[in-house]
């Protein structure tokens, strides 16, 4: 993994010192709240419903065991003993005090972490495939590119006051686990005509109130041109993006309004100008970064203990069947630790759990952890022979829920339990659904099914790309939930369609259950997933199940 250079360390320390001074200037009145707000946001500090919230970047989702332990320490020392992993590979602390924040930033700097640009109208934390460097289907590890982009975008003088936030996602595999099509810039590592590495570049994706799937602006961009090309895109956007209406300010709208062709032309022209500034230092740095991401030595060992445990222990087998993914190295597996225990808050981890995760990473996964956009923790390099011991350790800490990719593995934003923008709560809905299907013992029979819940139109819970999406709204002072079906965040990205009118807070769980039971009744066989069935039969039978009275009215 990447370790901070002296430069990186000095940078984050200087930045924490700057923020400390900014906090004091806000308190003294030298900075107005209007002036302070963007400064605190670009340092990851929000003011939420009940308290400040500090968002810490976990660039490209990679975390060392030492860093995880420090997060546990921060949670206990300055917060209320827990943290919340988000859909963009960040962790949020929900209760810091303003004057403690610089201390937290110093503590983060101690382990090579920061809160920089996790908010604000700037280039946000660069996300990547959470299986990067381990996945069997990978062309190249995307993290060296993401780290290069992190360094380039950090404190980029031209791009700290963009029209709106700007998100970049990178995947190194054809299977898109990083949802790059819903990013402002999506990068997919591909091989070029001459066999060299480069990128397919997508632009203008985003969820929010106007969900759009990113379009291809460049079929192949040579690896060497990564920074100047991204800089050209953001620079064109900075001048062209709308600033009169915050809901039309994302680059997806700029692309939509000007047309992809016009944007491409401007980007290519700017690229030609900007490229002259990059003389090769960026490529040398990339080579140095890449060396640090070399896969650790993963020696071959017999996998017999794994097979034996799998036969002997049904609980272990259930976990192994849902929570493991194929590793590029034979004998190894990628293990996902679910942070979705039935009835718990999706993505929350307590300090003690964080320490257990750090310990098992040291023992079984080369001291490395990943955070997925699905709000789970991943141990990327576990030998199969170690899986029974890993499972036992996780079980003891309440971290062995066998539900990855299943109906209770729900993505949910914090919603109105924490967020100042939310229009309804998300967490209780997620808790109710997970608890209900656990009671029914149907989860494994239902199979792969992604439920995603957002507490407002801004779609932090990615509801548009949930197989079942749920959007919480405020209808005349009452929480109301709309359902979308058929969304898909993978490489086949699709925005889900709305079923019809929303459901009140006490009707949303029965409605979800109806959708699932309709699927179970319609599927061609246990092998046909919810999404496949939906694509085969369409929306109509689900609508009929959800709104029976209306159906009768139409038939009459």
């Amino acid at each position, binding site marked *: 993994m990447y370790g901070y250079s002296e430069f990186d360390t000095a940078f984050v320390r200087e930045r924490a010192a700057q923020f400390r001074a900014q906090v004091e200037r*806000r*308190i003294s*009145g030298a900075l*107005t*709240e209007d002036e302070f707000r963007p400064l605190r946001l670009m340092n990851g500090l929000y*003011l*939420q*419903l*009940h*308290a*400040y919230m500090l968002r810490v970047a976990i660039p490209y989702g990679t975390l060392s065991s030492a860093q995880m332990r420090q997060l546990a320490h921060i949670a206990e020392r300055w917060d*209320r*003993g*827990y943290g*919340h992993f988000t859909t963009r590979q960040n962790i949020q602390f*929900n*209760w*810091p*005090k*303003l*004057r403690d924040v610089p201390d937290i930033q110093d503590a983060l700097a101690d382990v090579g972490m920061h809160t920089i640009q996790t908010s604000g109208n700037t280039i946000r934390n660069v996300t990547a495939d959470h299986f990067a460097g381990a996945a069997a289907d990978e062309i190249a590890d995307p993290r060296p590119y993401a780290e290069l982009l992190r360094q380039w975008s950090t404190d980029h003088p031209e791009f700290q006051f963009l029209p709106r936030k700007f998100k970049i996602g990178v995947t190194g595999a054809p299977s898109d686990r990083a949802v790059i099509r819903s990013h402002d810039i999506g990068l997919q590592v591909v091989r070029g005509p001459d066999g060299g590495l480069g990128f397919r570049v997508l632009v203008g994706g985003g969820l929010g109130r106007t969900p759009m799937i990113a379009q291809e602006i460049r079929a192949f961009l040579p690896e060497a041109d990564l920074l100047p090309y991204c800089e050209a895109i953001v620079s064109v956007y900075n001048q062209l993006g709308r600033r009169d209406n915050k809901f039309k300010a994302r680059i997806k709208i700029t692309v939509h309004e000007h047309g992809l062709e016009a944007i491409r032309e401007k980007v290519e022209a700017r690229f030609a100008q900007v490229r002259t500034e990059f003389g090769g230092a960026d490529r040398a740095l990339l080579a140095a970064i890449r060396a640090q991401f070399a896969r650790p030595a993963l020696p071959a060992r017999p996998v017999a203990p794994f097979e034996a445990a799998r036969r002997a222990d049904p609980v272990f087998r259930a976990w192994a069947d849902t929570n493991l993914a194929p590793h590029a190295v034979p004998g190894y597996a990628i293990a996902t630790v679910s942070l979705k225990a039935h009835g*718990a*808050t999706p993505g*929350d*981890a*307590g*300090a*003690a*759990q964080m320490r257990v995760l750090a310990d098992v990473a040291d023992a079984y996964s080369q001291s490395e952890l990943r955070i997925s956009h699905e709000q789970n923790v991943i141990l990327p390099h576990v030998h199969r022979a170690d899986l029974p011991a890993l499972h036992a350790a996780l079980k003891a800490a309440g971290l062995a829920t066998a539900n990855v990719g299943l109906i209770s593995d729900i993505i949910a934003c914090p919603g*109105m*339990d*924490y967020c100042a923008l939310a229009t309804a*709560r998300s*967490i*209780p809905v997620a*808790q109710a659904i997970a608890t209900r299907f656990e009671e029914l013992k149907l989860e494994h029979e239902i199979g792969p099914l992604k439920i995603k819940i957002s507490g407002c139109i801004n779609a932090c819970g990615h509801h548009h790309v949930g197989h079942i999406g749920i959007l919480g709204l*405020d209808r005349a*002072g*009452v*929480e109301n939930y709309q359902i979308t079906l058929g969304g898909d965040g993978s490489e086949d990205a699709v925005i889900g369609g709305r079923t019809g009118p929303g459901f009140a807070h006490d009707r949303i769980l029965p409605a979800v259950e109806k959708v699932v039971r309709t699927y179970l009744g319609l599927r061609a066989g246990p092998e046909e997933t919810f999404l496949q069935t939906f694509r085969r039969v369409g929306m109509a039978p689900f609508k009929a199940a959800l709104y029976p009275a209306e159906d009768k009215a139409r038939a009459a």
Partner: protein
Amino acid sequence: MSRRFTPKVVTANALLEGDVVYLTADDRWTRNHAEAELIEDEAHAQIRLIDADGRSAEVVGAYLAEARPGPDGPRPVHFREVARTAGPSNHSAGRA
């Protein structure tokens, strides 16, 4: 004004702690909704909001929130304000 004025309280977040606070009739900031000044007059509400805006060294983002009288003092009306008063519904969850 064709629409009848509904009673309000002035609320904000404390600058240093971030806590939800309410303006009292004697110009204090309280954490207790029931201690807030229930404002029944629109013009007075605007003046109280201006007063609150002026106290930027103490609070952030003051606004008027609907409230109604209760046996022990004003109570929130909208579910968002109820949530702000009560704290997160998973308050104890995840706390190791």
